[in-house]
Structure formats: structure tokens, C-alpha cells
């Protein structure tokens, strides 16, 4: 049994520390793995894949069951969004959007679990730190946004051709003679995509979690008022953030397909 943190500062810090494993034990540098983020995200990703694969294998043209209806509803929802936004043929974008939405949603959903539930259980079995919401880890949000960014670059080059992409970076918006202004602008414009994508999701969920932690510091008899209010409001936020991440991914990828 590991000692529970005694004062509020410790409590908050404890809640914001990842369970990590470093190559260099003394100095936690870049070569560190946040085990809680990895495990929870893979677990939730696994749940998503399992549920959807289960429904997909049994999917027939006949009358669907409850799970199948639910899964089909999600698929149709994402498919319609992609069809409305993205005018082109791509086997990747719709499944990518679905994966992003479901994965981010499930990870955000962990925020609605009582803030001390899993960390206390972990402490009971000897795990000193545990952050159960993977989307409050910058590593995860950046991993997703950088992956999307790489796809955007790849699509830009493969659809438009390297030369057209280069011209787009250097010759817009002010024409070829002002390329020394255009190019930095374009770079900032492109780099702002993954940055804003990652930081928006991270910021919303991090702040949400922090507020849950602060609410947990209140006396027990008053917690239910701000707690329930924030939790109900948070249902909206976790859905919205998952949706925004997916929607912006679709938009960025469709922008990569169409020249300005």
C-alpha cells in the first residue's frame, strides 16, 4: 500500500503525474514511456476495434440488432460527413475519421469516471501513479495530430504532385516574387494545423480533468453540486472534442486534395 497524498498540492500533482518508465532512471528525458497513457489508449482502442469488428462480422443486409444498429449509425454518420466535406475517392479517410472519433471519444469518456476511482484501485495494488484519461497527455494528442499532418503532406504531394505543392507553398497568396513572405506564411499555416489540433484536444480535456480534481478537493457534502454539473457539461465537451478532431481531420485532408 502506497501512502495517499496528504495535502491538496500533492494531491493535484499526484493526479497529474504519469506512470512512466524511463531508459535512464535518474533523468526522465525523451526516452520515457508513459505507461498509463499507452495502456489505457491501447485498451480503449482494443474495445473499439473489438466492438466494431464484432458488429462488422455479423453485419448482414437483414434486420440489424442493437449493437449493429449502433455501429451502423456511427458508420453512416461519419460516412455522410466525409461525403459532404470530401469530394474525391479515398478508401482511407472515412475509416480514419471513424477511428479518430471513436478512439478520442472513448478516451475522453474516461474523464467521466470518478476522478479517484482507478488511481485509488491502482494504489491499492501498488501502482504509484495513474492518469486514466489518455487525451490529457500531450504525447497522445500530438501523436494523432502529427499522424494526420503526415497524411496531409503525403496527400498534398501525391495528389497535386510535388511541384504543384511546392508552388502552392511559395506562390500563394502574394505571387511568386514575394516567395520569401509566402513561404514562411505557408509553413506557419501548415504547422498550425497539427499544433492547434493537438493542443485543442489536450487543453479541453486537461482543463476538464483539473476541474474534476479541484471539485474532488471540496468537502464531501458539497461535491455533488459542482461535480454533477461539470460532469453533465463535460458529456457535451467530450463528444464535441472528438467530433472537432475528426471534422478538422476530414477538412485538412480534403484541403490537401483540392488546390486553393
Amino acid at each position, binding site marked *: 500500500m502506497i501512502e495517499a497524498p496528504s495535502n491538496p498540492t500533492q494531491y493535484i500533482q499526484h493526479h497529474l503525474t504519469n506512470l512512466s518508465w524511463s531508459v535512464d532512471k535518474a533523468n526522465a528525458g525523451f526516452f520515457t514511456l508513459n505507461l498509463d497513457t499507452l495502456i489505457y489508449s491501447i485498451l480503449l482502442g482494443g474495445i473499439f476495434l473489438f466492438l466494431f469488428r464484432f458488429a462488422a462480422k455479423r453485419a448482414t443486409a437483414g434486420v440489424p440488432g442493437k449493437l449493429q444498429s449502433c455501429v451502423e449509425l456511427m458508420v453512416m454518420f461519419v460516412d455522410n460527413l466525409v461525403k459532404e466535406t470530401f469530394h474525391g475517392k479515398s478508401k482511407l479517410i472515412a475509416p*480514419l475519421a471513424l477511428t479518430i472519433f471513436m478512439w478520442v471519444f472513448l478516451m475522453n469518456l474516461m474523464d467521466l469516471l470518478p476522478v479517484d476511482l482507478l488511481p485509488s484501485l491502482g494504489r491499492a495494488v501498488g501502482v504509484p501513479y495513474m492518469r486514466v484519461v489518455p487525451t490529457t497527455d500531450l504525447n497522445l494528442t500530438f501523436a494523432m495530430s502529427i499522424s494526420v499532418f503526415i497524411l496531409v503532406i503525403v496527400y498534398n504531394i501525391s495528389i497535386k504532385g510535388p511541384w504543384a505543392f511546392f508552388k502552392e507553398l511559395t506562390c500563394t497568396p502574394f505571387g511568386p516574387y514575394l516567395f520569401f513572405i509566402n513561404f514562411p506564411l505557408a509553413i506557419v499555416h501548415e504547422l498550425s494545423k497539427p499544433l492547434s489540433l493537438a493542443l485543442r484536444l489536450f487543453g479541453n480535456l486537461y482543463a476538464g480533468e483539473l476541474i474534476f480534481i479541484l471539485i474532488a478537493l471540496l468537502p464531501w457534502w458539497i461535491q455533488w453540486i459542482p461535480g454533477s454539473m461539470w460532469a453533465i457539461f463535460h458529456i457535451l465537451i467530450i463528444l464535441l472534442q472528438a467530433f472537432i478532431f475528426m471534422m478538422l481531420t476530414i477538412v485538412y485532408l480534403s484541403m490537401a486534395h483540392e488546390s486553393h
Partner: protein
Amino acid sequence: MNLNLTLLGQMITFSLLVIFTMKYIWPLIAKALQEREATIANGLAAAERGRRDLELAQHKVGELLRDAKLQAAEIVDQASKRATRIVEDAKEQAHKEGNRLIHLARDDIEQERLRAKADLQHDITAMAVAGAAKILGGRIDISANNDMIKQLLSEVSSE
């Protein structure tokens, strides 16, 4: 809070999730949805067709029923006409037969009367001849006086 190797791990995880979804989840569901859409569209079309068929059939039934009623009425009409005619014919036949029988009877009666009259004439003639013979005291040549007597008799009988 620092960025670290977790980033790479998550990127790998993310790629795997996306690839799995793309290969093993999306196509199956999309296919099932398309098939169901086609099935439902077919079903709706079939229902529409069935409804139209039913309407046509009902229309046809109405027509047939009307025709049948018309025919039945015609048949009844004809039958009653025929019956009337048969009755009329029978009446006429009976009338004729009756008339015929009456004529026959009349003829018979007439003949009977004529025969009776002839017999009577004959008898009277004989009696007259016999009477005259007695009166005259001799035999009368019947053949010679017959004409006279006959004339007499016809005068008597015509009175």
C-alpha cells in the same frame, strides 16, 4: 508532461487502429449497409407494385361483377319472356284444340241429325205410302210416286 517516446508509441498504435478499421471493419459494414439499402428499396418497390396490382385486380373484379350482374339480368329477362311465350303458346294450342273438338262435335251432331232426318224421312215416306195404299186400296208403285212424296216431305220438314 514532457513529450517523450510515448508519442512514437501512440503514433504506431494510431496507425494500427486506423489500418485495422480500414481493412477489417469499414468494408464489411459499408457492404452490409449498401445491401440493406438495396433490399429495402426492392421491398418498397415490390410493395408499391403489389399495391398497384391489387388496385387493378379490384378494378377488374368490379367490372366482372357488373358484367355478371348484367348477364344474370339478361338471362332472367329471357327466361321470363320465354316462359310467357310458352304459356301463351300453350293457351293458343288449347284454344285451337278446344275449337277443333267443338267443330268435330258439331259435325258429328250435324251428321247425326242428318242421318236421323233421313231415317225419319224414310220412315215417314214408308208410313205415308202405306197409309195412301190403304186409302187407295191397292198397291202404289213406290218408285213412281216417290218423287212426289219426297217433295211433300221436304215441304213438311222445311216448315
